[in-house]
């Protein structure tokens, strides 16, 4: 069946993928060369587009401040999502309790909710809590909006753990908490890893929330930093944008190369664990 010739398919797919290949290839090329935007062939090697690493752009914070902010944002969000989803997911998957159906239905509905439309109200809540324009505030919001998805995914992973493992743990004298902590949790590590990578990437890329809820230079994330650079019509320089962009994407590329398998799983919508 697979022995038929496949080159027409390869050609077809390569043609369809061409825009992507070109865009990402030149993303890397243009940061080290001085070619004008759109030049097909790069001219000379240069590192001048990387000067943003040491020079501040206008009144913006330094790139390192933005990088640190983004890192704090992404890791804190991930930590919160992982911690909360791994307990809540377990409760929904395994624990007999009143209103379980209600909770589960709620998670499912929120899972597919138009979150970004709530941003006005979210702003007001942050303001009441005094968390507007702080990283803490936008971390809490991002984590909360990711939670239904996270809980849903974790529930899926818990569902695949055999009941007998838990029954066995109980017969061995362990309490439910201990069973969860020592027996079940280790069995869903792949899920935690996948969700963790997903949350990290999602936090790392997030644009609108920090843009609206934490626009100040001192708390700016890389996405906001980069957007303000791009939209500044006085300094239109694709090579600079791409260099910042490539810098911004380094962690993404690393995670992507290392954890491709897990990503495929979770970007499929995580319908199953």
């Amino acid at each position, binding site marked *: 069946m697979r022995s038929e010739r496949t080159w027409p398919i390869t050609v077809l797919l390569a043609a369809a993928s061409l825009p992507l290949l070109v865009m990402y290839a030149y993303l890397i090329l243009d940061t080290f060369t001085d070619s004008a935007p759109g030049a097909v062939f790069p001219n000379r090697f240069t590192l001048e587009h990387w000067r943003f690493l040491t020079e501040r752009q206008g009144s913006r914070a330094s790139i390192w401040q933005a990088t640190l902010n983004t890192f704090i944002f992404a890791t804190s969000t991930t930590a919160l999502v992982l911690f909360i989803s791994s307990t809540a997911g377990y409760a929904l998957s395994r624990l007999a309790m009143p209103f379980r159906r209600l909770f589960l239905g709620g998670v499912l509905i929120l899972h597919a909710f138009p979150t970004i439309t709530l941003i006005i109200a979210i702003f007001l809540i942050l303001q009441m809590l005094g968390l507007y324009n702080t990283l803490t505030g936008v971390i809490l919001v991002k984590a909360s909006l990711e939670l239904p998805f996270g809980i849903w995914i974790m529930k899926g992973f818990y569902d695949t753990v*055999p009941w*007998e*493992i838990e*029954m*066995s*743990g*109980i*017969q*061995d*004298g*362990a*309490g439910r908490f*201990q069973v969860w902590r020592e*027996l079940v949790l*280790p*069995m869903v590590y792949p899920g935690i890893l996948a969700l963790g990578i997903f949350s990290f990437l999602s936090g790392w890329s997030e644009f609108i929330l920090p843009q609206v809820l934490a626009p100040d230079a001192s708390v700016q994330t890389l996405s906001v930093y980069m957007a303000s650079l791009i939209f500044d019509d006085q300094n239109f320089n694709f090579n600079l944008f791409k260099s910042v962009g490539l810098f911004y994407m380094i962690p993404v590329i690393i995670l992507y190369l290392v954890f491709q398998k897990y990503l495929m799983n979770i970007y499929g919508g995580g319908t199953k664990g």
Partner: protein
Amino acid sequence: MDIRIENFTKRFDKTTVIEDLSLTVRDGEMMALLGPSGCGKSTTLFAICGVYTFDEGRLFFGERDVTGLASQKRNVGVVFQSFALYPHLTVAQNIGFPLKVRGESRAEIDRQVRSAAEMVRVPELLDRRPGQLSGGQQQRVALARALIRRPDVLLMDEPLANLDAKLRLDMRTEIRRLQQETGITAILVTHDQVEAMSMCDRIAIMREGRILQIAAPRDMYDRPDDTFVAGFLGNPPINFVETQVVDGHCRTQRDTVRVPLPERLIGLPAGAKLTLGVRPEFVQPSHHTRFTGRITFIESQGREDLFDLELEDGTVLRSIQSVGARVGVGDAVEWGISPHDVLFFDDAGQRL
């Protein structure tokens, strides 16, 4: 320690799966809960170990009422069908887990794990992980883990179902050996009558949430209470022949088989319907009560041959005989039944 279940009833939502079940397992006895899938045997086991709660009824371990007691406090060892070994722990950690939970010292855990491993004969596997073990080895580890904290009761849920045939034989004896060595009261849940008969002191046979009969294996085989029990036990299965009482005999409609009624049944009115149960080993060429038929099928089982014999009216009788009969498919034969060994069941399937 004996186990006593009194009037146990279990419902899931509105479906009653176990109704008013009572059972006593004697101290040191190994009891089989035998029945087809869905009969409630596993539910009963889970209720005994505390995974399920009792909707009604009580459960005693010895004199102690454990009905409302949490699983963790019941001191029960359970071996699951899938063995339920913890995949991320080593064999030693698996076996030692119950002790670790109890907070025993590391040295003590070590010592006991070693001796338990020796008891189940896997001392060389302690550093492996479950994924690296064969089915039989996993089974042994699961047993060691169940037994290490010296439970009052050992429960086994289809422990052999996941093993291949050869291992199953080995483990049968192994489990029985361990049970007898430790003298622990044990319950074995199985759907396999051979396991139940070969391993257990007594069998409780279940169907649709009720216990039909409790008896020692031999008694149950020889004197099943009804057609279901008779049919469930024995391989090849028992032959059932529909008959009617006609002057001291019971016979099939076209009189292809005619068996004299034993004395205790002489009083039955003519025309009463009886089902005869004849085990294949009691259908032999030499037996007295003769009938004729044609061989339709022969299956050689090595030491024995299995024959299907079709009578004129289409009734098929199965016979198992030592190798040696010189007949072939299509041959007409006249064989016999041993009338003393025939079981009589009434209309409702109860043995008379």
